[in-house]
């Protein structure tokens, strides 16, 4: 019997779409290397978390239905983010549980939705391809991925196979970075104090690079590190695993850095 390559709908997430397309391409490459057929439905926008976390369940439901309709035809839905994958997997079924027409569809989508690294390892049993990245890195466990989806070991397993990369654990790897979606703009000064715990902790490891699996947290930490004048580099782990670090500088760095405003 010939096994069909699983057909994966890549949910890039709104932040990757807007800010860092390389993460999307890296995710697609990893999925293809692992034997999947990947498509990116052009109907995708955002998972709806800003509405959901702001208490606007009406809009959150409408967006959830939109995402379900766009992705339910795939064998799997994969997102390079524990937070967005968690929204589809954990929260859509709760949001739509009393909607007779949608409850089952939300449940079905939830069942086949995965965060990228956990999909590669837990579902596909793929242990990584060939990649090289010379760095001493520490890994930030994003909250939703860690606590809603149990993502901890998966990215570390994959990163262990990257040549030249040494991973150092930080004491507060599991601590929230203070991003929290709209939280970080609503309460910037509280968020600042929280992210400072994070940056101090990662500086203490002596690592030169921070890796993670959620662009929101990474942008927050990278932005704070830049503001502090730190030299620590920040990247989404997918870029490293896909060997695509040559295609884009670390988050927050650019060719004209240091030029006057």
């Amino acid at each position, binding site marked *: 019997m010939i096994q069909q390559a699983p057909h994966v709908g890549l949910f890039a997430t709104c932040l990757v779409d807007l800010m860092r*397309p390389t993460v999307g391409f890296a995710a697609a490459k990893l999925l293809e290397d692992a034997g999947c057929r990947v498509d990116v439905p052009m109907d995708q926008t955002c998972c709806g978390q800003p509405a959901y976390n*702001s208490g606007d369940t009406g809009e959150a439901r409408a967006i959830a239905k939109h995402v379900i309709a766009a992705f339910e035809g795939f064998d799997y839905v994969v997102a390079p983010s524990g937070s967005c994958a968690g929204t589809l997997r954990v929260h859509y079924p709760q949001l739509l549980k009393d909607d007779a027409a949608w409850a089952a569809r939300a449940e079905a989508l939830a069942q086949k939705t995965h965060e990228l690294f956990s999909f590669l390892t837990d579902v596909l049993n793929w242990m990584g391809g060939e990649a090289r990245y010379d760095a001493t890195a520490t890994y930030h466990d994003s909250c939703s991925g860690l606590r809603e989806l149990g993502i901890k070991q998966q990215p570390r397993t994959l990163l262990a196979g990257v040549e030249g990369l040494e991973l150092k654990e930080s004491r507060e790897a599991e601590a929230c970075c203070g991003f929290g979606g709209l939280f970080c703009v609503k309460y*910037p000064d509280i968020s600042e104090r929280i992210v400072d715990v994070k940056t101090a902790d990662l500086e203490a490891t002596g690592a030169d690079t921070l890796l993670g699996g959620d662009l929101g947290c990474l942008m927050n930490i990278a932005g704070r590190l830049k503001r502090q004048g730190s030299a620590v580099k920040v990247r989404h782990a997918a870029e490293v695993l896909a060997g695509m670090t040559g295609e884009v500088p670390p988050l927050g760095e650019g060719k004209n850095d240091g*030029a006057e405003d």
Partner: protein
Amino acid sequence: MEATTRQFTGNARQALKNDNLRAALDKLSHGFPYKRLEAAARLPEFEALRDQSRDIKAHVLENLDFYLQQFESKVIEQGGQVHWAKDAAEARDIILAICQEAGAETVTKSKSMIGEEIAINGHLEANGVRPVETDLGEYIIQLRKEPPSHLIAPAIHLSMDQVADTFKDKHREFAADRPLDQPRELLEEARTMLRREFLAADVGLTGANLLIAETGSIALVTNEGNADLTLTLPNTHIAIASIEKAVPTLEDATTILRVLARSATGQELSVYTTFVSGPKRPDDMDGPENFHVVLLDNGRTQMLGSEFHDMLRCIRCGACLNSCPVYGAIGGHAYGWVYSGPMGSVLMPGILGLEQTGDLPNASTLCGTCESVCPMRIPLPAMLRRWREQQHARRLTSTKSRMMLKLWAMLARRPGLYRAVMGLGVGFMRALAGGRGSLKSLPFAGGWTAVRDLPAPEGKTFTALWKERRK
């Protein structure tokens, strides 16, 4: 206590400027959470005990009327009295009446969050009865006229130096140049002061960690033994507890006690665990002649069966505060009323009303750490979201934020338009960045760029590039 929950943002800003507080909170978040983890690791059945504890309280809440009545009749059988208070004012009056009947001048108090909730101290003082806190932390903040800033460590916001200064200021009878820079010295001085109060007190007022229905007992846990002196020395003991503290049996109580201290401080058990069943019996060596239990509702029955039902499982261990990044940044006082941290942000809107407490459910990153450490497995983040939903539904959020949200949601459901707008946005940010990797400021994104740079977008959007490259 006057609630300042409405001024949360300003409170938080002040708290963030307080270096003493920062040092204290750093110590807290590097202490208790790790101790909790170690204690949990030493007890293989810890996770199972959490499940059992959750189930016990869930069962009680389904049958609360039954267990409270059973508790009441047992207390009466043993010669005690039970008083029902529907709100804080009723509870205050009941307690004052008992004190007046006892002719009380001095009331010793062991730590009670319900005592804080009903603001009993102010009421007693206003009526000529002098309350004296006997828990060391509570004693300190009573001297300083401050509210507690943590469920189990009420003076956690203070440094030792501050405590020493307070003692020097308030305890004028000791030599002004006495050494007070060792914990031991502070403790000795407080003990000297408190011994007299214990002996002079006419009434002892305690809380209750658990109300045990089958025996009509209350359970009290402390690390200082002050509750035992508070309740055995005076002639009258009043225990005040909110109604959700009931558990069916002694066995159930011990199950919960096994997770309580471990979750709170990482101790196997608190240093003192005391069960009190009624007043002094004829052949008892000591104990009060009169035993009263005041059962407080104050909004609890409203929460029963509501979306916030599960919150009533809370045993006030403080684990969710200890691990909360927001609490760790701003401490307890910023929350503006008796409770704080994740549990406070869920509970206080229920007690004070959402109009008074709008910021609290929003001031959370929803990181989920609280739920992961809560011994009673209370889904705190989900309940914070429930409050946000109510806030939105009742139009308690700002018009501006509602409009922004609507606009964004409208876009999110129209992919064509969304892509066009996002493409423009990316182009705009790129132009501003001018080849630099990040932006120092950006119109409409002041909340972001106030404290951090904004990494500039790479170029085009992913969807646009994918279309170019792959189709």
